């Protein structure tokens, strides 16, 4: 997980060089902040084929806006904001029909047997489905923490929320994931039983 303070070191120098058209400096900036930008976009758009395209657009905008970046805010905060806005715009442009389990009639919670459901490896697909059901802020915090490989402090700084709030978000996200994944697993098991 990311080391607090590491990402920001040397940003001013890189920004100054990139502003003058240095390919090397800008490439270093992209490499440094791509995990965060990608996680932000992924956290907002979910699993979509255009996540990387949007992440690239973020950095195109960052480069074009470098001349106007005065360093009043941290570079990470600026990139986070651009990534968030880009992802929200992309979400507005297309609204793909996501799979939902809301239309599924669920059995009573007592019938959910998590103790029998998790003797197996959790697959990324299950997590993707689970993430799609989370509160957007929880999902974003979780993506920044894991996909963005950021520390709690870095997530806190990027999202502009206290570190305690971020910890709560991630904690609740995991509990919610368990609940959602248990429900999905139950539904799938139930369907297989009825339609073998």
């Amino acid at each position, binding site marked *: 997980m990311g080391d607090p303070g590491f990402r920001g070191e040397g940003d001013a120098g890189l920004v100054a060089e990139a502003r003058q*058209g240095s*390919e*090397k400096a*800008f*490439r*270093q900036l*992209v*490499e*440094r902040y*791509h*995990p965060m930008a*990608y*996680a932000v976009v*992924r956290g907002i758009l979910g699993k979509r084929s255009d996540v*990387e395209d949007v*992440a*690239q657009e973020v*950095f*195109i905008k960052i*480069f074009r806006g470098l001349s106007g970046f005065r360093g009043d805010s941290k570079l990470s905060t600026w990139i986070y904001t651009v990534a968030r806005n880009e992802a929200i715009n992309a979400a507005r442009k297309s609204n793909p029909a996501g799979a939902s389990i809301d239309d599924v009639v669920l059995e009573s919670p007592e019938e959910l047997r*998590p*103790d*029998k*459901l*998790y*003797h197996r*490896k*959790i*697959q*990324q697909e299950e*997590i993707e489905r689970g993430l799609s059901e989370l509160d957007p802020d929880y999902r974003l915090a*979780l*993506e920044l923490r*894991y*996909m963005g*490989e950021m520390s709690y402090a870095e997530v806190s700084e990027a999202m502009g929320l206290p570190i305690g709030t971020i*910890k709560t978000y991630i*904690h609740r996200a*995991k*509990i919610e*994931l*368990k609940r959602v994944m248990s429900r999905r697993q139950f539904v799938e098991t139930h369907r297989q039983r009825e339609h073998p």
Partner: protein
Amino acid sequence: MSCDAFEDLLPLYVEGELAGDERRRVDEHLAVCESCRESLAFYRELETALVSRESLRPSPAQTAAVVTARLGLRKRWRPLDAYVGVPTMASAGFILLGIVLFVFRGAAARFFTDVAGKTVGRPGPEFSSDVTRAVEGWTRGIGQIAGLGNEWVLLSVYAGILALVLLTGSWMVLKFVRE
């Protein structure tokens, strides 16, 4: 504490965020509660799966290359002199000079004879023939190095040229890729 309360602590337990009495209480509960042990197994699996999500992300270097190319920042193939160092250029120059002198050895001999004769002011047949002999001997020497009557020398020269080309080429490619 109820099972639900203990279960709420399990994500923190897995992340190592619990300490002291709290962790000990969870340990004691886990020892007697199979349901919570199953939940713990879930959260451990979840943690592993979440950590491995990093691998789903394209590499930052790859994205950086694409973005800089889209912006037109990525360096294109530059003129040869920007990539080839002075020693390499000098070596190549000497080899080229040797080849040219060998190919045009007759003309070179006449040229040097003429120039030497005019410079010294004695373009007589004796002097001319001396210079001609000297220059011809010199060009013959280069010719021998280039392979006249000595296949091994010829092979060495060609191998040297090939090695030089390969080394220079590799260096240029590496430099281009790094930049």
